[in-house]
């Protein structure tokens, strides 16, 4: 059962080949066996999930729930608010925080009969690319437990790869869904900004954050996206007026699909195995009938600086809410109000979070604002304009997700700049608010997964999913599963 896709699992439940309770119990058993080795889950909501399984089973039997994923377990990155279930953001600051409301995406999954079975480890407040900055230990990569799972949604990607859960939600601010998917050999969708409500997603950088899905196959990820997307009265930036459907049949041929291949993404610091596998994916899509054409991606050197200036500026503002008064950690040593603020924040935040708050404070401070923050916002305009022009020529852009495969635990954690440069292929997508899918496309010589991404124009998710579906129909990289002592 743990090898089934989520859609197949739901089908088996509808056909009464297995019960929702059996499905939930089997996944929880797997989590209990493997989580001690991988550290993917921060909370397993065993009792509520098993209780809910019975309710959902009855509702499916009564024909009250007909969604294509009814009865399927799902786990959520721990920055997505869950009513009554601890939501920590992998931060000491929120160690005991129990939300009093659900994120909109959680309500929508539950209305569709999905069962939340737990909350997943991540980088603290989603700030990191390796799931090593959290307060509750490092997520380990199921393909090699001495390596990182990527981040910041490392727990989400690793849990799906390890068969602990068929589906997960993550969030992507600068690559945080796509990069861990690439490192763990699973599939993910980063939706267009505004396609999915951010209500209840703990804010990191509000003009960049977006919730998305992670699964084994593009069909599973698309099925989740069609459940969670759509306008929300609680999020004024959730702009799309129609929901997504991905029910177009499998395209055997990608005739008429114009795919751009950024030539300069394959020079310089990229690992040779990664470059080769991603170029092979482009060839595969060309063999399926797509027109693949090379071009030079403009502004490549300015993407990471612009992204980190904007993300840190927004983070420093968003994280000012942690004051030791309304919720979250409060320093026992604080005696004055100023000490409540400053000691609670100093003791409650980890080093990477402090680094980004300090950077954000710097770029927003008087005297530096124009040279850094304003300049970054102007660069963002140029990047968006560049994408607008590219999407006049192409339906989508095919690129690597990360310059390397999963690296060793601890290898980059003390070198923040090196870590930030690892986001070179992903951050511009968030600056321009675009959708992208990440798909497995091979393995390096150490048998570590490699991923590529397809980036589309705003709200072109259905076209990306079509191309991804054709790719996965023609290849089997997404069906490979890790093994190791933890299995």
């Amino acid at each position: 059962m743990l090898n089934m896709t989520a859609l197949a699992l739901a089908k088996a439940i509808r056909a009464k080949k297995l019960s929702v309770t059996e499905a939930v119990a089997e996944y929880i058993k797997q989590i209990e066996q493997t989580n001690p080795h991988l550290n993917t889950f921060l909370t397993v909501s065993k009792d509520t999930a098993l209780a809910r399984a019975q309710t959902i089973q009855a509702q499916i039997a009564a024909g009250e729930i007909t969604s294509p994923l009814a009865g399927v377990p799902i786990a959520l990155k721990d920055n997505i608010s869950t009513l009554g279930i601890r939501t920590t953001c992998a931060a000491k600051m929120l160690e005991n925080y129990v939300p009093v409301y659900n994120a909109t995406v959680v309500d929508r999954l539950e209305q569709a009969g999905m069962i939340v079975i737990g909350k997943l480890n991540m980088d603290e407040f989603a700030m990191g690319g390796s799931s090593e900055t959290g307060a509750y230990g490092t997520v380990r990569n199921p393909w090699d437990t001495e390596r990182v799972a990527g981040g910041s949604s490392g727990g989400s990607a690793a849990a799906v790869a390890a068969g602990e859960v068929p589906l997960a939600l993550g969030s992507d601010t600068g690559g945080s869904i796509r990069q861990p998917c690439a490192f763990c050999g699973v599939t993910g969708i980063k939706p267009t900004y505004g396609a999915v409500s951010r209500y209840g997603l703990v804010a990191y950088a509000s003009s960049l954050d977006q919730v998305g899905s992670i699964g084994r196959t593009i069909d599973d990820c698309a099925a989740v996206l069609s459940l969670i997307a759509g306008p929300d009265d609680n999020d004024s930036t959730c702009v799309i007026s129609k929901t997504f459907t991905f029910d177009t049949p499998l395209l055997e041929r990608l005739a008429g699909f114009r795919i751009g291949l950024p030539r300069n993404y394959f020079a310089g610091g990229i690992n040779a195995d990664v470059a080769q596998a991603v170029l092979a994916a482009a060839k595969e899509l060309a063999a399926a009938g797509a027109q693949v054409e090379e071009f030079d991606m403009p502004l490549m050197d300015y993407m990471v600086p612009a992204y980190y200036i904007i993300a840190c500026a927004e983070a420093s503002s968003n994280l000012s809410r942690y004051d030791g008064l309304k919720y979250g950690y409060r320093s026992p040593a604080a005696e004055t109000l100023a000490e409540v603020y400053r000691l609670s924040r100093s003791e409650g935040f980890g080093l990477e979070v402090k680094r980004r708050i300090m950077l954000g404070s710097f770029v927003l401070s008087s005297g530096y604002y124009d040279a850094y923050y304003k300049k970054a916002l102007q660069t963002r305009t140029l990047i968006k304009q560049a994408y607008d022009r590219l999407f006049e020529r192409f339906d989508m852009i095919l690129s690597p997700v990360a310059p390397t495969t999963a690296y060793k635990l601890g290898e980059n954690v003390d070198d923040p700049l090196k870590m930030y440069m690892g986001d070179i292929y992903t951050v511009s997508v968030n600056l321009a608010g675009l959708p992208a899918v990440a798909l497995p496309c091979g393995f390096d010589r150490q048998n570590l997964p490699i991923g590529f991404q397809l980036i589309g124009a705003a709200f072109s998710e259905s076209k990306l999913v079509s191309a991804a579906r054709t790719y996965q129909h023609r290849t089997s990289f997404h069906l490979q599963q890790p093994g190791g002592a933890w299995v």
Partner: protein
Amino acid sequence: MEIDAQLIAYLEELSCLILSEREKQRLTDDLREILNSMARLEELNTTGVPERSHPFDNVNAFREDVVQPSLSREHILQNAPAHNSEFFIAPKTVE
């Protein structure tokens, strides 16, 4: 970009943080390196380019301004580190 102790102290103040000596040293080095790398944006000619703080131009999806139930006081106080069932409790600020 020169990052000195005075600037770090100013940023601590703005960030509402108190850093340990070790963190100060660490972040001084990190900020210097990161900001030097970010400074490459100077090369770009952005004269007359508008600033973009949001991915799209049609930012707000408005809803009708109708009164709806909100969270109860009990719920709002539930996660507070200190409260008296009516209010958040903070140290005295007025002598």
